[in-house]
Every structure is written in C-alpha cells, then in structure tokens.
C-alpha cells in the first residue's frame, strides 16, 4: 500500500460552510497529517459530520479549499477514499454479494473478486456468514460488513462517522480492532466518535470542534491529560461525570 503515493496531508484553508446565512462551520486553517489516525471530537451539533462530509467531497464548501496533498477534495481524490456511516447501509443480498458489489462498483475484474471477497470477509470475521442475507446480521456484524465493504476499494483515506454509536461494548471492540488493522494496513483513518476510550486507544491526534470551530488540534495523550481549550476541558469533564 506504500506504492500509492502520499495522499496527504490534508490542508484546509479559509473553509466556511453556511446554510441560509447561518455559519455552521468556519475553519481558517487546519492540517491533518498521514502519520496516525485522527479523531474528530466535540459535542452534538458541533459540525463534526459536516466537516467529514466536506473532507470526503460529499458536499461542497461555501468558501475555502480542502486539498489532499495538493489535490482538491472530492472527484478523483474522493474515489480513492471510503466512508462508513453511523447506520450501516446494506443491500438486500447476501453478505458475500454485498462485498462483491462494492468490488464491482470499483471496477475490480471478476476473476480477482472471489479471492478478495474471502480475504475481506476473513478480515471482518464474517467468513461463516458469507451466504447469509446481509440484513439478517446483528448490528455489530452489519457494521463490520459495512467497514469491510469500504475497505474493498483499498482506500487511501477511511472516513468513519460514529461507527460504534449503536453497538454494545464487545461489538464496538471488534469494530475498533478492524479499524486499527485498516490503519496499520496504510489507510489514513479520520473518524468521529463520542467514545473517549476508543479515541484514546486509536487516535494519534484529536481535532476538537465546538460551534463550528476547531478549538484545538492536539496529540492524543496530551489532549486527554491536558486539554488546552476550555471547551475541550468542559467536554471531557462532562464525559467523565456521565
């Protein structure tokens, strides 16, 4: 996976996103490096999902630019990325067919697909479920399938928007393991989560958002030990109390 050329860093300049006069996101400058998984934290409504969708090119900014190693977000860059949503969206077919379908959308030759499918299912711990209708999987298994399907295109960047928020702790751990392995495999992970334990274990650095602004970007150990901004301090404190 080292042969794909550096897709990063991500550089964000003068980014704003407005809807009807309301500024939902305002990020004068932000840089995200290739080196480690990045977690986006912040209270509900901070603009985390918006930022992720902008980075992936699903929506266009009102003003400003987002570049991946110099290239604009979306378009050809977006096609080398994948996104996993909070609720897994699966096709009404078998588990294996869902993965096959993702490979097909990314123009993987038919002859190659079979091997890739079993490797991917193995990776997601879903080999025993290959022939099962995807929508009969448990919530955790469905999310694992959604992640494996996202990995099918061998993405440069894997975006995840609260992938564990509706799962029990043990299912979350399986997801966490899958994400960690994808990161070790060379994909840049950019993820939103409200699970601080998970963030602590996986993150290299934290981008903390509040009211549409980046309050701080800090290496993970430091962030959890000594958050710089008052907003992050308050967020962490409230999480600890809960």
């Amino acid at each position, binding site marked *: 996976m080292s042969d794909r050329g550096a897709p990063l860093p991500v550089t964000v300049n003068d980014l704003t996103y407005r809807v009807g006069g309301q500024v939902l996101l305002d990020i004068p400058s932000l840089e995200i490096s290739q080196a480690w998984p990045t977690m986006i934290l912040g209270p509900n409504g901070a603009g985390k999902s918006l930022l992720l969708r902008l980075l992936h090119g699903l929506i266009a900014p009102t003003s400003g630019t987002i570049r991946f190693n110099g290239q604009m977000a979306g378009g050809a860059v*977006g096609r080398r990325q994948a996104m996993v*949503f909070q609720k897994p*969206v699966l*096709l009404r*077919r078998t588990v294996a067919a869902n993965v096959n379908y993702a490979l097909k959308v990314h123009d993987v030759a038919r002859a190659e697909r079979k091997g890739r499918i079993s490797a991917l299912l193995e990776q997601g711990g879903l080999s025993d479920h290959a022939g099962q209708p995807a929508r009969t999987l448990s919530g955790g298994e469905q999310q694992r399938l959604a992640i494996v399907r996202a990995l099918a295109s061998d993405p440069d960047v894997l975006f995840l928007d609260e992938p564990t928020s509706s799962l029990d702790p043990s299912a979350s751990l399986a997801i966490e393991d899958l994400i960690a392995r994808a990161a070790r495999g060379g994909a840049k992970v950019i993820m939103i989560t409200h699970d601080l334990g998970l963030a602590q274990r996986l993150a290299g650095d934290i981008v903390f958002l509040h009211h549409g602004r980046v309050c701080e970007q800090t290496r993970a150990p430091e962030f959890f030990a000594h958050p710089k901004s008052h907003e992050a301090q308050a967020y962490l404190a409230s999480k600890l109390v809960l």
Partner: protein
Amino acid sequence: MDDFLIRAALAGIGLSIATGPLGAFVVWRRMAYFGDAVAHAAILGVAVALAFSMSVLIGTLVVALGVGLAASTLTARGRSMDTTLGVLAHSALALGLVAISFVRGVRVDLNGFLFGDILTVNAGNLVMIWGGALVVAALLIWRWSALLTATLNEDLAASAGIDPRRERLVLTLAMALVVALSLKIVGALLIGAMLIVPAAAARGFARTPETMALLAVGFGMLAAVGGVWASALADTPAGPSIVVAAALIYLVSLVAGHSGD
C-alpha cells in the same frame, strides 16, 4: 384468436420489459406520485403535439421530460414532495385537457389518451413499443449498479464516485420514455398503475433487487395477457382490465408472498 388481440397482448408484453425494472425503482424510491405527475403531463404533450402537428410520441416525450425535470428540481430544492408533485400532476393534466379543447379542426378522442386504446395497436406501434421498451431496459441495465447504490443511499453513492443527481436524471428520462410509449396502451391515467402494481406484487416474492425487477417484468406480462384475454371474453375496456389483472396478482402476492421489509 384475432390478430388485434394478439397485437394488443404483444404490446403489453413489450411494455412490461420497461415497466418492470423502472417500476421497481419507483417502488424503492417511493416515487409513485412522481410517476403520476409525468404521466398526467402526457395529456399536455398530446395537446402540444396536435397544435404543432408533430407526432404524439415526440410531443408527449418532450412534455413528460420537461415536467419530470421540473419535478425533480423542485423537490431537490427541499420543497414538500407530495404537495409539489400533486400540484404539478393535476395542473399538467388540467392544462392538457384545456389546451386540447383549443386545438381546432381535430376531433380528439380524449378517452383514447386517458384510458388507452390497446386494441388499435398496429404493427408500426408494436415496433415502436418494443424498440422503446428495449432501449429503456438497456439504459437501466447499463446504469444498474449506480442506480441501485444511489437509491439505497445518496451519500453512499457519492462516496463511491456516483453522482446521485445524474442517476435521478436517468430515471426521469426512462420515466418520460415509458410514459410516451404506454400512452396508447393503458392511457395517461393508468400508466402509474402499470409501473407500481406489478413491482409491488414482485416485492412480496423477491429476495434480491434483481429478482424483484425480473418478477415485476413477469407479472406485468402476465397482467397484459390476462387483461387482454379477459377484456375479449367479457367485453371490458382493455387498458383498465390489464390493471385489474395486475391488481389481482398483487392480491395473490399479499397472501402467498413473504411480508417483505
């Protein structure tokens, strides 16, 4: 069996090749009302065609496409889908009926356009219907993966490099073509039924999107043959009889099929 009955059945069978897969998308995307809006616009298309002495096929195609595009633009801007489409559907129909009354010199058989006239299908019509239906089916098969992904979740599609707006456009184009083709068979008022009813029946039996589309084709064909046959036997209007046959198949699917999801 009489020639005209055979031609009628063949016309219905041909049309089903297009309405089956397209109807599946109409059901999945809950765009039943969208289909109605485009279909009702066909009457306005007839008036335009008569006024400018163009072929009715071209006139309905152009107007159906225009209304389809208008509807998808308006609803994409976040206006209430139900209301917008309701306004569009009924005003297009009413405007069409008013406009036709202005076209001088031609005594128009409105019933034929509203309820279809499948028993008058000639060999030329048949070629057109089969040709058009095959074009629509080919279009849908070509875009199948992209259409399916965009239908499932627009974000997921965009993430995979598929432009959901373009896929919506493909469906609008297919819808306009189907409406133009089926005007003569089931008429403007019942086109929507031909799209939805067989696909809804198929949903009760299908386990994958592909089998649902194929079953919808099969049910459409069955309804066409059954409807034409029944109309010959009982001397009932053919277009509505086809829809009644499809509705019976739907009833059977409610009893015999699984509950779906």
